[in-house]
């Protein structure tokens, strides 16, 4: 009995602020709407319009592309940083100090970190002026800002830490004697990395991937700002509908996105039993 009482507060919070809203979104996605009001109903038009519009597929493809590229880059960078921290830095004090340094950018809001790229990448920005000054280019590189490149760059900057932390965490728990055993058995550094360290970091990679994938799939601010409003994603489309008060249509978008992300997470879970690894 006490056990149930003890989990009640958490349960209530989750029901009220997590499960409740999701149910509401699900219900509203079947409502009808006009320019100014929601009309409680059970219609499938929101989903029909969503699936019958070619734009939906374009933006899902685009969103998945951003997600995949961002995931790959954050994984490579995150794994390398975590590996350096866990295996190359020997003293625990230094490990902690460097780890904290990684989190420093997170002391400011992510909007500011994102916007800070604009004067760096702009036509008359830092990078272009420098390259022009060095004589490496004769006219400014246009693709640096307001492009897909800028979007991915901002994503990587914003989300790499979400990869570093869980991977670092699992690496720290790898028994050093296992690495020694690998060397003793004749594995070189590369083989140890691929066959020993990487499999042992699976859960950290999976957790980091879930963070990055869900964040990128649902993003609209970064894409809007860094592409100069020229790229659309699922989040941007949803936000547009919300701004036009088409809440049911936005809710239908949200439901489809939620299902998509849940499928991706489920696939990841097939590879790793996160609960066991925590």
């Amino acid at each position, binding site marked *: 009995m006490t056990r149930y009482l003890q989990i009640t507060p958490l349960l209530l919070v989750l029901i009220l602020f997590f499960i409740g809203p999701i149910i509401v979104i699900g219900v509203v996605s079947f409502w009808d709407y006009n*320019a100014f*009001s929601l009309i409680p109903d059970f219609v499938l038009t929101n989903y029909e319009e969503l699936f019958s519009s070619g*734009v939906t597929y*374009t933006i899902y493809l685009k969103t998945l592309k951003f997600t995949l590229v961002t995931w790959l880059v954050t994984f490579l960078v995150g794994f390398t940083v975590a590996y350096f921290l866990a295996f190359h830095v020997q003293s625990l004090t230094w490990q902690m100090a460097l780890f904290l340094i990684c989190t420093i950018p997170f002391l400011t809001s992510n909007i500011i970190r994102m916007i800070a790229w604009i004067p760096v990448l702009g036509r008359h920005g830092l990078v272009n002026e420098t390259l022009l000054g060095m004589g490496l280019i004769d006219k400014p590189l246009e693709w640096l800002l307001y492009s897909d490149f800028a979007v991915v760059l901002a994503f990587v900057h914003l989300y790499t830490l979400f990869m570093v932390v869980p991977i670092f965490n699992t690496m720290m728990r790898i028994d050093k004697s296992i690495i020694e055993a690998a060397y003793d058995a004749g594995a070189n550094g590369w083989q140890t990395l691929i066959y020993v360290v990487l499999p042992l970091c699976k859960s950290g990679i999976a957790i980091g991937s879930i963070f990055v994938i869900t964040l990128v799939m649902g993003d609209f601010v970064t894409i809007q700002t860094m592409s*100069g*409003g020229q790229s*659309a994603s699922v989040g941007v489309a949803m936000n547009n509908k919300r701004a036009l*008060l088409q809440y049911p249509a936005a809710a239908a978008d949200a439901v489809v996105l939620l299902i998509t992300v849940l499928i991706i997470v489920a696939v990841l879970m097939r590879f790793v039993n996160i609960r066991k690894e925590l």
Partner: protein
Amino acid sequence: MKEKDISTDLSKDTQNESETDQGRRKFLKTTAAVATGAAAMTGGFPMIWAQNIKNVTLRQFGTGVSNINAIPEQVKKDLGFNLEMTALDTDTTAQRVVTQPKSFDIADIEYFTVKKVWGAGNLQPFDVSRLKNYDKIVGIFKNGKLTPSSNIAQGTAPHTVGFAESPTSKAFATEETNWYTLVPTIYNADTLGIRPDLIKRPIGSWSELLNSEFKGKASILNISSIGIMDAAMVCEAMGAVQYGDKGNMTKEEIDKTMAIFTEAKKDGQFRAFWKTFDESVNLMASGEVVIQSMWSPAITKVRSMGMPCIYQPLKEGYRSWGGGLGLSRNLSGLELDAAYEYINWYLSGWVGGLLMRQGYYSAAPETSKLFMSDDEWGYWFEGKPAQSDIIDPFGSKLESAGAVRDGGSFYERMGSVACWNSVMDENRYMVRKWNEFIAS
């Protein structure tokens, strides 16, 4: 589906009518009190009514342009009561009027918004006979004509949705009546902004926005209802699309317009799209964009940052917009009197001066003259060269002596309006097509 909803709105409103009648009677009774109150204000006698009204708080919301903190401060000083202001975006203001009529007393909205929301019956018309400066209001907000010989532009021209047939009517009157749906306050003529130092040649037509010379250096605003009008101005100027009425396009016209813009986007014509005032300023000031749709105060902001920027008059004319104050149906008694007092004060010059010195126009421009220096009046309204530095109401220097306002005088600018911001019958289709263009 739309029709079904309007009918429910209508039935809701018949219920309200009896309440309104009561309200009207009450307000007739208090009219005398207002008159004495107003006299007390000017005479400076502390009358009981004047004491009473100090406890009134009017809640106003509206778009950012005219939600300036200086206004409530001056209301407190001049009228004695409180004004609370909330700044919202255009779509939210419309939603508020329809869905939360009790959440506001005064709605500061645009004419194309009132076209959408008037039918909901949550606004009550303003008794024009109680508007002191009605004779000073420009023709645009009366019969639609700036001067007797002016043509009326396409789109939702303010006078077409400016009057109600009766205090309870949900329909717009086709001519001047005693009932204003909105009391006009602010308006302006919009055009393209350019960076003359980076373009280095004269620009004279809307079609230049899609000129390949500015490939990767153009921008358009990503607010569908306004962006589509700019797009139409461009397509018409290019001779690519002929419109029956740019303010009320057919599906086919929308498709053609968006096809041209989608192609331009795919070719890399646009550097970015902007949604907020600050974004437009940054794009222009940084030189990322050299030609784009822009709002008048954004131009002055860029200039005050030291960058040359011109609000370029174009031969096809301007895209214009206007806004005004609407009264909530729930206002009655002392609050309603205070609202009438406030709106009369609004048009009596102080606010007009505040708006005109930022580059907007006041609905009763003459009254603002008293609150502007001759030089300011000459620069902003008459299009004369500035005699000394032009300073905005917040203290920043906008122009040096000798400068002339882009586009010239009030009559030159407002006289060449080609189209008003509007709501189309095919609005939902247009929004969908616009979003596809952005996502393409």
